[in-house]
């Protein structure tokens, strides 16, 4: 089957979503469009696949040791990320700028993905149900749950009230993901539990907007306001997607109180 090409503006929006450059409302809008547009879905799938291919290869050893060392020196800690610097500062030197740039990319790309993350959150979800340690603070009032995290974490997770949307807040707890403390918000829908893991977005985050299933559990992943969210539940996939959309829109509509 021939691959269809999305409209240019949609195409750039898909890239922006993957790069975390699209605001939450625009993500929700684009996701609605993706449900209807085959061309855009194919493009998203293609880009995610490209990212997986790059991440799945051991490209660290693709460059000769001397060149890797040179690139590592150019990306040294004295020049942390998220800091403007002259292009020539790391594109120049003994290696030509173009070659240095491409090698630098190859060394960085394998760190983009976290292959065990989905399994880790599913394991955390199961553990919380089995061990009876679902919540540290069992409270349906978000004005109690949200302050409970103060002093326990270096970030403040949004805790929107989604009761009207059919997702009742049940409480929150601390958990560990990838060796770091994370916040977990617990919501319920009928007899189903949703564990929502929240942590600061990594420097090289996972692609936005992923939706996967593992061992019968759905995992929705998104980023918003510098934080990364992973929702796990045995809910129907459609309900879990709706939880994600409701969470984003409600969190933003109640932003002044967050």
């Amino acid at each position: 089957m021939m691959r269809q090409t999305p409209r240019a503006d949609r195409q750039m929006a898909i890239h922006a979503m993957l790069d975390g450059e699209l605001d939450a409302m625009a993500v929700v809008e684009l996701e609605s469009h993706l449900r209807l547009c085959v061309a855009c879905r194919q493009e998203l799938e293609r880009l995610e696949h490209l990212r997986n291919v790059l991440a799945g290869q051991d490209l660290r050893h693709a460059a000769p040791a001397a060149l890797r060392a040179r690139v590592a020196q150019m990306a040294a800690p004295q020049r942390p990320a998220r800091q403007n610097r002259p292009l020539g500062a790391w594109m120049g030197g003994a290696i030509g700028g173009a070659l240095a740039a491409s090698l630098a990319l190859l060394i960085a790309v394998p760190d983009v993905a976290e292959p065990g993350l989905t399994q880790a959150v599913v394991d955390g979800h199961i553990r919380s149900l089995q061990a009876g340690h679902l919540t540290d603070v069992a409270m349906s009032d978000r004005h109690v749950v949200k302050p409970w995290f103060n002093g326990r974490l270096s970030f403040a997770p949004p805790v929107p009230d989604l009761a009207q949307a059919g997702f009742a807040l049940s409480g929150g707890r601390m958990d560990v993901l990838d060796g770091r403390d994370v916040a977990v918000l617990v919501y319920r829908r009928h007899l189903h539990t949703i564990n929502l893991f929240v942590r600061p977005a990594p420097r090289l985050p996972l692609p936005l907007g992923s939706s996967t299933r593992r061992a019968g559990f759905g995992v929705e992943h998104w980023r918003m306001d510098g934080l990364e969210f992973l929702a796990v539940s045995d809910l129907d996939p459609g309900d879990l997607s709706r939880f994600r959309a409701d969470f984003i829109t409600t969190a933003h509509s109640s932003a002044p109180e967050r």
Partner: protein
Amino acid sequence: MEAIESHVTSGEVRILIERLPEPFREALVLRELQDMSYREIAQTTGAPLGTVMSRLARARGMLADLVLAPAGLLGDAPDQPMTREAKP
């Protein structure tokens, strides 16, 4: 939907990225390695924000066309850089 497969090795991926025309490779690397925002890339390269977005999209598009191409195509790839950016 059409199945997507990749047949490239690490070395081939490196070669393919090296063949990306300079402005596209530059945008891609600044985004992926330096974790720069689109606005920061625009400030660094002096290109308008829309151009940065367009270059990133094209860079990834070109790479995807090659990385996800059927087996055999890579061996026939030309040595010279791929499509250049259109002059404004």
